[in-house]
């Protein structure tokens, strides 16, 4: 078997044992890697109903057949586990040298079990695994922790680590790597923290198995140069992802004031043009030639790396439009290891709840100084309010009551990314049916909705588009484990990925072969949710209630008077289920499971709820 190492490393923090496990070609071809491996391992190994923050949960780092090999843009890893924020399947991806180093160490995945008896740094160097004390950096932020690690091991190792938020089990704590950015906004940092696992450091010295190493090397380096050239020609990375902020503001899709508004006259102050003007440096993940990380000086003189999502949700959504102030909030979230998106949504929800008399306190929109204080409290679960907000929007709303759940901007417990779908039905569906909660990484259809169809359509073409993009973004790129940006932002031909896959594995797959794997993984994740929530129904695939509320409609601008329609959204959701082969509850039918090679998993699911 080429393309895969055929090995996974299983580490138990309770017993301090490490074991190399082998897997065969059948498993590799069925699940490919990354999200596919993670979903299958979690399905097979987790008992339903376990506490995501207990020692029974597992923390998985999973890579794919082209991960770590020089080619566009392969320096990424998937981190996964049962999500503390949703109680369902959770994962995320982040740029990190762990992708290359873990594969060079001889593994395609790392499975961490149990719980350490003290703060621990897990060190992996090829076949050697060490459990080292990390008390010195327990309680420290991710920047200081990374520096501490680099001082010990040099900067060529791969690092994953957590900040205070992960240690204190903030349900939307992320995993950080300064070689990239952050990942696992479904609370993967808290899963690490629950195991007293402060950091993972990986160094590998072996060759990554490839079917055609010379061909892969040539194609990889040639294509890295070509992607760089396209980026220069198009100018994409001048503003990177932040170019979309001004556009969202123009077309009424920007989150403003906890998504109450869709645009704001001051939004230009924190748009991509202003960010580029304030740029002090540019960063990218390993194996990236279209670097998207733009840094500025924040209002305390620190270097803060911004992108669209964190500006949108820490900025306009909190009615803060000063870039250095937004940069400061972003820096704090990164240092504490708080997900910037969920963090922004949690604070905007809190301000909204205070505004509506549902929550105690005096936090108001636009108050950056108070927001900083709140993030410090959340990261340490300090005081009653820090503790409540550390639980995320949905749980906080259930504590506050007074109908505040309607404007807790989340789906399945995961806070909404920075696109205001008050009147964008297809994107609302994309959030609704995302397999991990309201994340934009699975599918993003807004320009399609405006350009190639009608914004107010709830037709099957939108459900079809959501599925097409899920297969690529939430499927292919998440299990082959590579950044989607060359394709999504620069138009890099999708056919390049079967090419890389063939050079790595020797297997000649078509894109349709990959879509079958994508559908299989999505269906298995659905079964995971079903096993955790046997009474699940289509309501869990609905976006936040406030997007349907006529009282929340814009009073001026391009979508004045318009909000989503419940009946029509339900019809759109049914189109999605029909196209996917799911029943009316949103569960894959037996026929669908059999078609995707999931008959055995279907039998297990049947023990928890009937299948149609």
């Amino acid at each position: 078997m080429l393309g895969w190492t055929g090995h996974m490393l299983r580490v138990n923090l309770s017993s301090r044992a490490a074991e190399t496990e082998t897997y065969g070609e059948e498993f590799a071809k069925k699940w490919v890697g990354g999200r596919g491996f993670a979903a299958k391992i979690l399905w097979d190994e987790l008992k339903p109903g376990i506490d995501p923050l207990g020692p029974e949960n597992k923390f998985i780092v999973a890579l794919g057949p082209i991960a770590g090999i020089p080619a566009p843009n392969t320096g990424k890893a998937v981190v996964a586990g049962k999500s503390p924020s949703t109680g369902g399947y959770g994962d995320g991806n982040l740029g990190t040298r762990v992708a290359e180093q873990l594969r060079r160490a001889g593994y395609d995945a790392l499975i961490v079990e149990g719980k350490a008896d003290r703060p621990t740094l897990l060190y992996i160097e090829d076949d050697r695994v060490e459990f080292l004390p990390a008390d010195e950096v327990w309680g420290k932020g991710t920047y200081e922790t990374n520096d501490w690690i680099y001082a010990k091991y040099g900067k060529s190792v791969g690092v994953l680590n957590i900040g205070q938020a992960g240690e204190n089990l903030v349900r939307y704590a992320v995993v950080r790597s300064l070689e990239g950015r952050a990942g696992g906004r479904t609370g993967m940092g808290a899963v690490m923290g629950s195991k007293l696992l402060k950091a993972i450091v990986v160094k590998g010295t072996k060759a990554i198995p490839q079917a055609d190493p010379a061909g892969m090397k040539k194609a990889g380096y040639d294509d890295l140069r070509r992607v760089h050239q396209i980026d220069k020609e198009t100018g994409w990375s001048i503003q990177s992802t932040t170019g979309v902020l001004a556009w969202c503001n123009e077309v009424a899709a920007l989150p403003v004031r906890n998504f109450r508004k869709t645009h704001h006259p001051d939004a230009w102050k924190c748009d991509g043009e202003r960010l580029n003007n304030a740029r002090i440096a540019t960063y990218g993940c390993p194996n990236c030639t279209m670097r998207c990380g733009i840094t500025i000086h924040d209002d305390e003189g620190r270097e803060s790396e911004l992108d669209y999502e964190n500006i949108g949700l820490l900025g306009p959504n909190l009615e803060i439009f000063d870039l250095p102030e937004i940069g400061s909030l972003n820096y704090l979230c990164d240092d504490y290891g708080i997900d910037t998106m969920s963090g922004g949504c949690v604070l905007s929800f809190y301000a909204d709840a205070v505004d509506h008399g549902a929550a105690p306190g005096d936090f108001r929109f636009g108050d950056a100084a108070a927001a900083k204080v709140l993030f410090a409290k959340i990261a340490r679960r300090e005081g009653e309010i820090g503790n409540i907000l550390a639980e995320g929007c949905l749980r906080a709303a259930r504590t506050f009551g007074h109908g505040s759940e309607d404007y807790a901007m989340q789906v399945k417990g995961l806070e909404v990314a920075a696109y205001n779908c008050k009147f964008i039905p297809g994107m609302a569906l994309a959030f609704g049916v995302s397999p991990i909660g309201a994340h934009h990484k699975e599918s993003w259809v807004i320009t399609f909705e405006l350009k190639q169809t009608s914004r107010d359509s709830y037709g099957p073409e939108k459900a079809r588009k959501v599925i097409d993009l899920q297969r690529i973004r939430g499927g292919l790129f998440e299990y082959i484990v590579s950044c989607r940006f060359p394709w999504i932002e620069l138009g890099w031909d999708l056919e390049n990925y079967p090419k890389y896959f063939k050079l790595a594995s020797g297997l000649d797959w078509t894109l349709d072969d990959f879509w079958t794997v994508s559908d299989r993984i999505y269906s298995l994740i659905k079964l995971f949710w079903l096993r955790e929530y046997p009474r699940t129904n289509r309501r869990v695939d609905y976006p936040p209630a406030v997007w349907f509320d006529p009282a929340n409609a814009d009073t001026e601008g391009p979508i004045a008077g318009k909000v989503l329609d419940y009946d029509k959204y339900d019809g759109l959701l049914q189109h999605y289920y029909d196209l996917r082969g799911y029943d009316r509850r949103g569960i894959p039918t037996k026929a669908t499971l059999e078609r995707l090679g999931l008959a055995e998993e279907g039998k297990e699911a049947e023990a928890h709820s009937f299948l149609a």
Partner: protein
Amino acid sequence: MKITVKLIGPFIYAAAFSEKEINIPEGSTIESLLSLVKLAESRPKVITRNGKAIAPGETLEDGDRVVISPLYSGG
């Protein structure tokens, strides 16, 4: 008539302006406006008029705000 043109992202640097008013004759279409903005025809674009998608051949009106964006894909 006066049309405000707002460019998004990399188009700002390609056309060397971010936002400006352009004078065009009454009854001009979106295509005639585009011919005045130096952007490669080959670049896919999303064009809106007053925040709403615009159709090919659509006639503009005085005071319109036209936004020309690359085909963003949501990161």
